């Protein structure tokens, strides 16, 4: 299992790097799907098959598809890729990368400092998760429901296209 874990991890990291360096949105999204699949394997290795499934269904399936739909709706063409190339210079990587590396180093330091013994990843199946969800976390589930509801309403409200109507958040205010 070790090997599976490390291979999946490597694929996840590499594909994510590809995601963040692509100029073309669709390419990036495809790499993203790869990354999600790899992570899903990691989940499986860690003994969470239910979540692994969810990862594929929701992330790799629903969310990525949603984004692709939007890209299609926006009808982006080659100019978008050109513009992306223009924006994404090497110079721009330096600052964020530096910051992130520092942050990662600190995280790694903390993680490695408190070295614990290895563990056997037990299998926690959907039943255990379901019991937990509808037991102690039932309030959380309900809140999630409300959140999704809000998300739907919000998306509907914002996504509505009225012609020539400027949304009040974006209309130009008088000085």
């Amino acid at each position, binding site marked *: 299992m070790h090997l599976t874990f490390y291979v999946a991890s490597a694929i996840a990291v590499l594909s994510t790097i590809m995601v963040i360096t692509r100029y073309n949105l669709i390419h990036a999204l495809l790499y993203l799907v790869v990354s999600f699949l790899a992570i899903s394997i990691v989940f499986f290795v860690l003994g969470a098959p239910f979540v692994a499934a969810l990862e594929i269904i929701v992330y790799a399936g629903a969310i990525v598809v949603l984004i692709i739909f939007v890209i299609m709706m926006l009808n982006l063409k080659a100019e978008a890729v050109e513009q992306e190339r223009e924006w994404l210079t090497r110079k721009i990587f330096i*600052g*964020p990368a530096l*910051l*992130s590396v*520092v*942050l990662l180093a*600190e995280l790694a*330091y*903390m993680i490695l400092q408190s070295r614990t013994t290895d563990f056997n990843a037990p299998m926690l199946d959907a039943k255990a998760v379901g019991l937990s969800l509808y037991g102690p976390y039932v309030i959380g589930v309900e809140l999630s429901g409300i959140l999704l509801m809000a998300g739907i309403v919000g998306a509907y409200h914002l996504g509505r296209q009225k012609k020539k109507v400027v949304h009040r958040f974006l209309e130009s205010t008088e000085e």
Partner: protein
Amino acid sequence: MKELLWLIPAWPLAGALILILGGHRMSRTLATLVGAGSVGLSALITLLIGFAFLSAPEPFDQHLWTWMAIGNFQPSFAFHLDALSMIFLFVITFVGFLIHIYSSEFMAGDEGFARFFAYLNLFVCSMLILVLADNLLLLYLGWEGVGLCSYLLIGFWYQEEKNGYAARKAFIVTRVGDTAMAIGLFILFQTFGTLHIQSLLQQAPQAWSVGDQTALLVGFLLLGGAVGKSAQLPLQTWLPDAMAGPSPVSALIHAATMVTAGVYLIARTHVIFELAPQAQLAVGIVGAVTLLLAGFSALTQNDLKRVLAYSTISQIGYMFLALGVGAWSAAIFHFMIHAFFKALLFLGAGAIILVLHHEHDMFKMGGLRHKLPVIYGTFLIGAASLAAIPLVTGGFYSKDQILWLAWAGERGNVLLYLAALFGAFITSVYTFRMVFVTFFGAEHSHVSHPVGKAMLTPLVVLAVLSTLAGFLELPHTLGHVTIFSDFLSPVLPAVNVRPDAESMELLFQVIAAVVALSGVGLAYYLYVLKPDLPSKIKEEIPGLHHLWFVGWGFDALYDTLLVRPFVYIAKVNKHDVLDKFYTGLVTVAEFFHRALAYTQSGMMRWYVMGIVIGAILMLTIGLIL
């Protein structure tokens, strides 16, 4: 009869109120009637009470109402009548009345006629309260009240900027003295728990032995108050400028009454000064130095009224000198005579100035003795009294007494005597310089109109008084009349003459007489026989002359030391340096506001960057700690 006492200040007060409230609607006659009439009524009541007092000369207390009551501290509106206040009452009401009559003509052409009488009445009222008060707090009320009226009357012609300046100067300078006096009151209150004068005078000798430190302090502080009000060194600078007021004001306030309030205060609290010999000596020294300095300044003035002003300072110096050597009744006697002749001189000077179209410079007058014979005659009598011409003038008797006691009194002192003697010489020089320059020689100006009866009558009455009043008190060598000092003896102790000095009195009188006459002679020589000589002398010593002319430069000194720094600090700090601290706080807050607002760029990536940096910082801090 004595129950009418409260009416004496009440009449002028009523007059003042009527004039303030309705004066602008009154005719001049009516205003005169109210103004002079009310003081006249006071004078009448004073006379009645005076008779009653003579027949039964015990002190009389009248309690009107309790002013404030805090525990045992209960100062009241209450009057205390004794011989000392009787004399002051008499002088204030009678001289006041005469001056009111005089003013009715003097001010006849002025648009502020009613206002003038209102202020004058208010002054008389305050002055009467001052001398009648049975506690120091009420006395302080009168004290400040006369200060106010003095301010109002000096600045009576308010359109002139310099009059307003002189008025404010007078008020503020005297207030400096009042501050000292107020602190004296605080100490007295702390020590005795009361400010009732008679109780204080009784308790003081029991609480303090002679030379007690506290008594000394109180003495000096009261002296401070007296010095301010009576224009003595070092607070004398306001009086010459106070001549900006109308002449009757100068006569009443700045010669006869208010400026002698200091003398009254010290005489009233003489017990304290007897317990503090150093303070009393200081009174004498202040008097002696002042009379000399003011005398020299009087020698150089050209303005008729300024000569008289310096002369007033100098004469009050004599009174202080007398107080300083314990010759209490001599001081009061000189006060009374001085009130008569100095009022006379001021009124006379006022009349001259009026008919000469407000010409103050006496070197532009000259030869007036033919044009204004009555004024000349009365002025001469007054001047003679001031110069203490022997035997015939009141001034001689009062001043001679002071001179004599300055040397022969128990607390007498040769230096004080010599100062007084020299002062007497200067006095007669500057007095007759004034007379000769004004009335003799060539005419330089035109007399506009004759002087009316309302102005002349008071002059004549005062001339008579200043001559006759002197005979109330004659020395041993000349008749030995002691009406005045006997009258005062229940209030003020008599001075003891040193036993070894008694025989020499005649000699001293002769010396005083010779000095006075030689002064007149010198003046005659300089200003009538050799009129060119004075200017030559003046050119010889321009520095000294200027120093004397500006009153020894006290004005410039105070200006540099106090006034200018105060005004400078005030001007510099107009916008309140402490506020800068708060505006500074605001500036700092605004700076941070701008700095933080700048980070609110609207670009999401920057916000994320901020979050990351924040996370790094927090983690780093967490790791380091």
